[in-house]
């Protein structure tokens, strides 16, 4: 079986589910002939035609609101925002409508929509193309927020997201789109949406991360192993709802926890996990829970963006620091 990239796994999942369910409709800017600016919808127009693969006018609030209307009336829209920096005009439709339709009609109506968007820095793109504002959605009741970090998880989680009866924000780390390849059987098997994935088993410290930072975190774990520190690495994957059980079980074992994310530190998802671990695992903790995060500033333009993204070294240093804590 050929190995494919993360973005190809996205395409594979979309094609699978469009084949399986005629109500799945892909929409967004340039998703048709162009196949999306990252080619995530490549070939879908040819396979499924313009009724199911829809180039929209250039208006994100419209994409959001249209998807809500479609979803409420029996379709399963998978809407793409071209970059996360352009999702904001749709925030009103997502927070005030998509996330609430089931609740405010006491279950009479529902809104099974997937909002996909590439996210994160590190691809030399112009400004506004490097956002990681997953925390906004993680804070919003009624949503699910799912973030794959490998081709296989991209495939399985996207299938799950499309099949989920409620709205899902699906964030694709653009830095990983073509980073590593994997064999991804096109078997239509979804992955669970409420579970973390333990990518590396360890005993000394629990590294909790998601999205593109899985890359640096795994690299840091390898280096740390050489340095005598055996790190467990957890890919949260679904940040809302949060599977604290897996994280807490790990920290109870290791006694130490570092959370790594690319978003700005203040009020990021790392704060939530740190707060929970600190509260619930207080007696197991041998050191304070630390966060290695993006800085509380706007992601710099391309020339300095690498200085913004948490590096393997920053992760290593913090781990060493807490290993020495006493």
């Amino acid at each position: 079986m050929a190995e494919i990239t993360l973005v190809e796994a996205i395409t594979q999942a979309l094609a699978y589910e469009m084949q399986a369910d005629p109500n799945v409709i892909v929409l967004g800017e340039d998703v048709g002939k162009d196949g999306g600016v990252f080619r995530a919808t490549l070939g879908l127009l040819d396979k499924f035609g313009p009724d199911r693969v829809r180039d929209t006018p250039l208006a994100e609030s419209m994409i959001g609101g249209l998807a809500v209307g479609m979803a409420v009336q029996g379709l399963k829209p998978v809407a793409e925002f071209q970059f996360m920096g352009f999702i904001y005009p749709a925030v009103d439709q997502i927070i005030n409508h998509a996330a609430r339709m089931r609740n405010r009609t006491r279950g009479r109506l529902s809104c099974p929509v997937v909002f996909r968007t590439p996210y994160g820095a590190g691809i030399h793109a112009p400004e506004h193309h490097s956002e990681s504002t997953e925390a906004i959605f993680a804070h919003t009741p009624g949503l699910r927020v799912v973030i794959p970090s490998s081709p296989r998880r991209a495939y399985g989680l996207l299938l799950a997201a499309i099949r989920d009866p409620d709205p899902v924000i699906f964030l694709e780390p653009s830095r990983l789109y073509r980073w590593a390849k994997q064999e991804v059987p096109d078997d239509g098997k979804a992955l669970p949406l409420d579970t973390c994935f333990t990518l590396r088993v360890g005993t000394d410290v629990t590294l909790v991360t998601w999205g593109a930072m899985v890359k640096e975190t795994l690299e840091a774990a390898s280096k740390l192993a050489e340095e005598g520190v055996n790190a467990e690495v957890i890919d949260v994957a679904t940040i809302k709802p949060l599977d604290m059980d897996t994280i807490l079980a790990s920290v109870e074992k290791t006694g130490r926890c570092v959370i790594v994310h690319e978003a700005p530190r203040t009020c990021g998802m790392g704060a939530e996990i740190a707060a929970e671990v600190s509260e619930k695992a207080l007696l197991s903790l041998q050191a304070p829970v630390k966060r290695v995060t993006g800085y509380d500033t706007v992601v710099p333009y391309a020339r300095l963006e690498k200085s913004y993204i948490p590096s393997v070294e920053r992760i290593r240093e913090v781990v060493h620091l807490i290993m020495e804590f006493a």
Partner: protein
Amino acid sequence: MKVVARFEVPYYQYLDENSQLTEKLPTFAKDADSLAAMYRLMTLVRLFDTKAIALQRTGKLGTYPSIRGQEAVFVGVGHAMHKEDIFVPYYRDVGVVIQRGVNLSDILLYWGGDERGNCYANNKQDFPYSVPVGSQPLHASGAAVALKYHKKKAAVLTICGDGATSQGDFYEAMNVAGVWKLPVVFVVCNNQWAISVSRGAQTAAQTLAQKAIAAGIPGEQVDGNDIIAVHHRVEMALKKAREQHEPVLLEMLCYRQSDHTTADDARRYEPPKIREQEWKKEPIMRLRRYLEQIGVWSEDQEQALLAECEHNINQTVEDYLHTPPQPAESMFDYLYATLPKAYQEQRELVKKIGVVHHG
């Protein structure tokens, strides 16, 4: 310089403020029963509206937006719709939803602060009231995508206020409906006010109907106090939407004969006298006089109708007032199809504490 495009905005009226016909009647309006049915509904709606305000004033209902003076718009729209059509409302209504299988008591529940008011027993498709002004026309376009995709012979109708036409979402919704040829009708209830902001302060456009031109779809002005015009233009628009997938914008000219909501006091900003002047055009007496002229309405019928409405409304109010609150944990029971484990502990806590009453 040459001219590359030309546009016109038409205006429709059949029955003028003196209840005189200004045009040949459209076919449907030759059926006096149909007109009488609409008359009955408008009367019910006005009485219900008055009752709702009274309930609010005595602390038995939350903030409520009156439709006084705008009854022809809502009743006419509701009457012209087919059961299979989809309705996407704003918050100001009563006239449409009661024709869509929604109980009057649901409306009270909603404004009384209970989500069950959106859980209509006999309507599985219409959208709930939308409070964020101007956001719902996009849902209508989205619903129209679904109807068209499923090849249903039905259309979507959405309504919003004059103020809502200033929102980008309103424009985006018309624009996509135009370019995708969606079966959707956009209705604007131009009651001349958006809370305290007058129609003239919203936009320099001479008509709101002309906003359709930006989306490349037709726009019409309609006398919103003339329920014959309202019904006819809505019926035509829905037919065109269903059969030819041609969206249209209908601006209904009327006047808000009340405060914006019970939380508002229009005396602060509404120029004196306007309301009385506009009252001469109000839709219910206009239709009644016409029905009397053509001999299908009498004082006896009027009295019987009033009694019947009063009875229904009182019953509705009783039902409403005797609806016990939902259990506290209901706040978690419809958030997701299945409540994720992460929130179950919170649900247990809410349940344990039970309903906390306003102090």
